[in-house]
């Protein structure tokens, strides 16, 4: 149940972050698309983790506080999502011994 709550909470936070980014990266909408792609390729376990919620909350709060650093926080989240991509996880932890 806790995992489900975190998943819903993280999805909501990510949506808020995307909305904020869309409003502040109008010259480069492809950046938001790139972030969404990274999100869709991330491991489901990571997407419902406390680690992701904390990172997302931190980035959203900071991005809202300083709108001149939007790309910095998008880049930070992209890097984190890349580190936890489902493909990368599969390579590091093979399912069969």
């Amino acid at each position, binding site marked *: 149940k806790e995992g489900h709550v975190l998943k819903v909470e993280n999805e909501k936070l990510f949506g808020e972050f995307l909305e904020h980014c869309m409003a502040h990266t109008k010259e480069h909408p492809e950046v938001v698309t790139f972030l969404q792609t990274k999100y869709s390729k991330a491991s489901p376990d990571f997407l419902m983790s406390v680690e992701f919620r904390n990172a997302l909350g931190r980035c959203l709060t900071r991005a809202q506080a300083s709108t*001149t650093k939007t790309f910095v926080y998008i880049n930070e989240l992209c890097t984190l999502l890349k580190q936890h991509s489902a493909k990368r996880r599969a390579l590091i932890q093979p399912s069969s011994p």
Partner: protein
Amino acid sequence: EPSQVVDDDDDPENRIAKKMLLAQIKANYSSG
């Protein structure tokens, strides 16, 4: 009185992050 325009590129950290992101997008696009 002219209003002060804030440009995202005024922030060096933001400028670097933007460059990095656009380069990654370009690389992804090129690789298919």
